[in-house]
């Protein structure tokens, strides 16, 4: 079930009602929310719910087994086996096709009969996200940072519909305790939640969908037919599109959770205002960044084992982060580029710490230069992320830097305006938004609903017809 649909609006009204009616009865409430979440997930394909239930069962069994091991070595093995079992379905769904085709072709080249069954596997929506959450749970139990939860709590933690299909990747300590706190039905921040939902819809429906159709898809589809200007604008447009698409989804998810009295961690914090790649990753897909840091980079040794190992760990983390997005070389290159950016950033910081490199002066133009550099580097990465192959990405960048002439009919005023709005939201002060929310919150519910209804109408009218899926659903 997609968020910006009538189906979801009706579903949410029923869930909202049931949620608050059953709020005082923990058992009934949890059963209701699990059922609602499974219906939400099964709306795509009813068979998916077996996968979700299976991952839940494996994670819970793993956590129980891990928690019962007193011997540290056995505990670690139990965790490793648990993680392998939890991540198995993700590896199969995401990488089997890639693996089977490459092994078959390698076998043919080597004149062997090594041919794994050629089965095409459809990737169930959201599996990457809830698998990572399940791994968090098993590892946190192993580290004794979180006790084993009940079967019901684990099932609800992994299936809770606001985060189910594209995050945020919520850690067990952030959500499971909230399941046992009776939410206060007297103090609902409806304006804060509504602001997030309507803002998210605006970003997704009006900005992201428009830019995708108007310039990004045509240019990335066949860069050889476009000149440098259109390619440059399309790359920036994609940067804005993916931000508005993904952060729009996250805003809606956080807003929906807020309406039910839940707090989710922030996932985006004006990422394009960053002045370095390190800062970008502290602001972009924050829950994935910290997951990679806490469950991959630090276990690999982080920065505790010398400079070279730090750089290796950064590269491994970012390469795997790239591969998480899909079994394709262009994602690996994207991850590798960001790994390289981070390594260079660390190296520069170490040179500055040793006094070899001077610290840049704290002036506005240095800040502007840093911002431009960081944004350009991020955009170069996005070319590999969006292109359907490394070859296409290189061809685009080649045409861009060799200043190819070509038509510029796709660079229109609405496209530039949409890009400007998408970039402006990175920089506008937060105070006016807070003042508007505060003013709206003083309204009576009926005028408040009328105002929100008009805002929703404006969003659906401004956006293109039809419902485009969110980019991150494919991951």
């Amino acid at each position: 079930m997609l968020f910006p649909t009538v189906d979801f609006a009706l579903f949410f009204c029923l869930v909202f009602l049931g949620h608050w009616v059953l709020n005082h009865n923990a058992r009934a409430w949890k059963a209701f929310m699990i059922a609602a979440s499974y219906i939400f997930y099964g709306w795509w394909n009813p068979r998916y719910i077996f996968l979700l239930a299976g991952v839940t069962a494996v994670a819970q069994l793993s956590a129980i087994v891990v928690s019962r091991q007193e011997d540290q070595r056995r505990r670690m093995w139990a965790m490793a086996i648990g993680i392998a079992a939890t991540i198995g379905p993700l590896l199969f769904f995401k990488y089997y096709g890639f693996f089977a085709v490459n092994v078959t072709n390698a076998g043919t080249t080597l004149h062997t009969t090594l041919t794994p069954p050629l089965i095409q596997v459809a990737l169930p929506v959201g599996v990457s996200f809830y698998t990572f959450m399940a791994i968090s749970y098993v590892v946190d139990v192993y580290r004794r940072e979180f006790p084993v939860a009940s079967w019901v709590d684990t099932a609800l933690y992994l299936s809770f519909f606001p985060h189910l299909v594209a995050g945020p990747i919520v850690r067990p300590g952030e959500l499971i305790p909230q399941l046992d706190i009776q939410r206060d039905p007297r103090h609902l921040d409806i304006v804060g939640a509504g602001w997030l939902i309507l803002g998210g819809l605006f970003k997704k429906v009006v900005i992201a969908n428009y830019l995708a159709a108007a310039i990004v898809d045509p240019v990335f589809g066949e860069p050889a037919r476009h000149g440098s200007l259109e390619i440059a604008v399309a790359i920036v447009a994609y940067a804005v599109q993916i931000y508005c698409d993904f952060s729009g989804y996250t805003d809606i998810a956080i807003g929906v959770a807020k309406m039910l009295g839940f707090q989710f961690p922030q996932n985006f914090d004006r990422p394009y205002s960053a002045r370095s790649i390190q800062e970008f990753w502290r602001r972009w897909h924050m829950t994935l960044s910290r997951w990679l840091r806490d469950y991959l980079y630090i276990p690999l040794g982080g920065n505790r084992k010398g400079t070279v190992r730090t750089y290796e760990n950064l590269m491994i983390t970012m390469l795997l982060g790239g591969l998480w997005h899909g079994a394709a070389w262009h994602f690996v290159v994207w991850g590798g580029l960001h790994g390289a950016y981070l390594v260079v950033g660390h190296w520069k910081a170490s040179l500055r710490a040793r006094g070899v490199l001077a610290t840049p002066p704290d002036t506005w133009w240095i800040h502007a230069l840093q911002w431009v550099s960081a944004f350009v580097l991020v955009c170069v990465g996005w070319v590999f992320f969006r292109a359907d192959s490394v070859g296409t990405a290189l061809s685009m960048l080649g045409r861009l830097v060799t200043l190819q002439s070509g038509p510029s009919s796709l660079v229109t005023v609405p496209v530039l305006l949409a890009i400007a709005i998408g970039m402006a939201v990175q920089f506008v002060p937060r105070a006016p938004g807070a003042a508007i929310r505060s003013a709206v919150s003083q309204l009576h519910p009926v005028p408040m609903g009328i105002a929100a209804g008009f805002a929703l109408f404006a969003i659906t009218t401004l956006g293109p017809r039809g419902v485009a899926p969110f980019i991150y659903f494919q991951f």
Partner: protein
Amino acid sequence: MTDEFTTPPPKRRRRVMPAGRALVVILVTLLVWAVLYAPELKRSAEAGDVGTRRTVSLAILDPLVWVTDHTGLTAAANAAARAAGRDPNAAVGGVDVGVDPLPSAGPDDHDQHHHKIVKDTDMREPSPDKQLRVAIVGDSLAQGVGFAADSVFKPFWAEVFKQGRISTGLARLDYFDWMAQMRTIVERADPDLILVMVGENDNQGLLNPDGSLEQDVGTFDWAAHYQERVERFAKIATSEGGHVVWIGLPNTSDKSRWDFIQRQDAIFQTVADELPNVAYFDSWNTFASADGGYSAFYRDGTKVREIRSPDGVHFNTDGYALLTEKAAQLATKDFNLDPKTYAP
């Protein structure tokens, strides 16, 4: 879970409210939106498949549209839509995402090859200043072919007009009128080669542009009426001397759809055999597995390639490129299309 609320009341200036009042806000929001957006919602519902969901949606939306019309809100909503650059009276189907704009008028050589054709003819020789005009028309499958055609056909020799529109077909002319659109394409782009791939959404009643039912699906006469539409469409496409490669529908992972698709393919092939300058490309047998079943993979010499989308209906990028190359090769074989326009 405790009986007492553990969350302290917020101390922010922003006012909070009880869940009951919040529900009022949500319901009023949705109601206001539904009233303002009712005409558009109704048009979307009318375009849906004939069935319970459509019937229920229309039963709910009819009174809302009545309210919207009688309060003057429809005019205001239409004005808002126009201000946002959307034609409120445009066909609800066939969104023009990924569709290339057509020239405002036909090319200079528009009437040069306008004569009655009784048998297949050769296509003209393209030149850099008089490129071959290639249009790709149909549903979402054609949209995929269109994007592939952009890469397969060489920009130096061929100009590609991507005209595929998702969710469209020849059954529901009320949703999107392909007959009228094909006429517009012929008049304005005058394509030399037209790749047609359509029919994936046509397992339903045949409706006319005005919404009246021509023939219900599942009836004995459905196939004859559908064939008449296919024939009419192909005749429009070739009416100005264009050549058509009609790409048949491939098999799907869902076997329950096979019978219907094979009947459609038989119709496409019959029409192609009957009409001059129309060739049929058999994608079913080209991409089926060795035992005739569905396969997501294609063995190209010694290499295996994944060519189908995981949805079991569409192709992936690689598959569309392969399909487009094969369609172009058929045009070379049947219509003498110059291979330099597409050969690597």
